[in-house]
């Protein structure tokens, strides 16, 4: 099963510029999480900190009992073998063709014969739809292809934690949909902990179990997807709907004068850039392709969420309760329209180590 990643009070700055501070969150083992945030809020920096490429000044990142911020270089290399990371631009090795790029981790870390390597590499290339491009150099293919090759390389060692930096950027909507499905299928098959960083609202609404958002040097929220999707927080509402009206500006901060001017424009009938409907609200999550195993993470998450449901905002509670079957509602002792009260006792025996 995937591994839990615990982040506590993390702060990162470059010189005098603080990127984000006091970020605290837990990526539950085997679940899919998405981190949203406007451009430049440090999402990529956050991912790089999680794999120890950047050293935050304060806080901890605990994986399997090891604090990545302070552990030895040797230990860090050990821990990194559990990760599969997709970089924003693919980060393929420019001097190797796609085949060698994807085979690289296998050749470095396993004693597989060339025939086995070939089988695995071709399987992963087929998975991301790159069959026939084995001999191409990274400089000779499109950005979207580089991205998919980067993903194939990240997956080749069957990682326990998968980090994806904007898997959708540079991809068309159809490929993005395939990719979302691919990530969910992967999660069903190998039960890896997955963190996706993106601005893509569709991914945010349909893929994750947990959703978070970074803005103005802080983690605005992080929790079960229902919480963010039903949130009244102005930043979240603006971001999900892609409006100009709201606290997010072209540059990070928006001053009150600009905000007032924009409000005046909007009142005068000038479109604020969004479609008229509000896309907030909970829509069903993507399921694994029929024939694949059921996602264990879904069951674990349901248990986990139901044990903290009384702490969530009312709208989120209702969203969660509505998504349960009647039978489950009875089992957890909750009703549509009524606030969830006491912590519901878990109806299934707890599994070891699962929150």
């Amino acid at each position, binding site marked *: 099963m995937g591994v839990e990643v615990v982040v506590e009070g993390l702060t990162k700055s470059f010189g005098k510029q603080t990127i984000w501070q006091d970020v605290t969150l837990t990526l539950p083992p085997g679940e899919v999480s998405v981190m949203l945030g406007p451009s430049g809020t440090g999402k990529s920096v956050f991912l790089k900190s999680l794999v120890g490429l950047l*050293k935050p*000044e*304060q806080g901890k990142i605990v994986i399997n009992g090891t604090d990545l911020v302070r552990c030895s270089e040797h230990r860090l290399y050990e821990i990194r073998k559990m990760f599969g990371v997709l970089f*924003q631009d693919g*980060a*393929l090795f*420019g001097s190797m063709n796609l085949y060698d790029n994807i085979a690289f981790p296998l050749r*470095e*870390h396993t004693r597989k014969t060339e025939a086995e390597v070939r089988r695995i590499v071709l399987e992963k290339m087929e998975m991301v739809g790159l069959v026939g491009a084995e001999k191409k150099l990274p400089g000779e293919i499109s950005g979207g292809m580089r991205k998919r090759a980067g993903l194939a390389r990240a997956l080749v060692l069957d990682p326990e934690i998968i980090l994806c930096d904007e898997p959708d950027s540079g991809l068309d909507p159809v490929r993005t949909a395939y990719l979302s499905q691919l990530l969910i299928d992967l999660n069903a098959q190998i039960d890896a902990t997955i963190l996706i960083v993106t601005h893509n609202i569709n991914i945010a609404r349909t893929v994750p179990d947990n959703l978070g958002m970074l803005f103005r040097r802080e983690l605005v929220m992080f929790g079960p997807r229902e919480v963010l999707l039903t949130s009244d927080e102005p930043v979240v509402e603006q971001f999900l709907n892609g409006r100009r009206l709201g606290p997010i500006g072209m540059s990070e901060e928006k001053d009150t004068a600009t905000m007032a001017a924009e409000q005046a424009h909007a009142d005068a009938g000038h479109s604020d850039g969004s479609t008229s409907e509000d896309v907030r609200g909970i829509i069903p999550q993507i399921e694994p392709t029929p024939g694949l195993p059921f996602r264990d993470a879904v069951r674990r998450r349901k248990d986990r969420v139901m044990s903290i449901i009384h702490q969530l905002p009312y709208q989120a509670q209702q969203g969660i309760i509505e998504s349960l079957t009647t039978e489950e509602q009875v089992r957890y002792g909750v009703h549509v329209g009524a606030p969830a009260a006491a912590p519901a006792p878990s109806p299934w025996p707890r599994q070891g180590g699962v929150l």
Partner: protein
Amino acid sequence: MTTQTSFPGAGALRETGKLCQLGIDVVRTTFRRPFQLREFIQQSWFIVSVTVLPTALVSIPFGAVIALQLGSLTRQIGAQSFTGAASVLAIIQQASPIVTALLIAGAGGSAICADLGSRKIREEIDAMEVLGVSPIHRLVVPRVLAAMLVSVLLNGMVSVVGVLGGYFFNVIMQDGTPGAYLASFSALAQLPDLWISELKALIFGFIAGIVAAYRGLNPAGGPKGVGDAVNQAVVITFLLLFFVNFVLTTIYLQVVPAKGS
């Protein structure tokens, strides 16, 4: 919780510290198996290919200038018979390591720095680290060793070409006698002169490789940063090399007694 103290010169000290740290890491990692033989051979070949021709072209006039200068000087003080020895010593001990250093830093080091720098900004280095492969072991060590090897070989080549050039100019242009040139050669020159020359070249190759790798792995933001890094790498290497050359020469002259004294 790394608090960075700041006082004048702290930045420079910090950089120097990191540079030394990289040097130590490289030395340590050199002995880690498996040795990256392919990369080493490719890099050696690459550095040779960018340095051999310019080195040959530089060393001929260098040898000639030294021979001509010494030739007229020795004639003025009436010591023609020592022209050969003096020019050979000057070429082997000083000129050839310096020429080698300039070319290893200017041609080889800048290529290494640009290569690593562009890999860094394309995030290839990060990706490699995340894949659990140490870029120092995989990329830096073979390059530094290649720079050292090529440096030693080039030094040998510069010595030979320089000495031949000196001989040619002295004998043909200044009517020196071939016999005297060769005889004085063995009267003053000794084997340690060659060793110190090669040792210098080895150390210069190491320094050039480390500085190039360090600057390449830490470019300051974006493609422009890589350009600046290459530039700085060459300048820093030159400064370091001339300084180290001074130190080594001083030590050598103190430690090894001159022949015939």
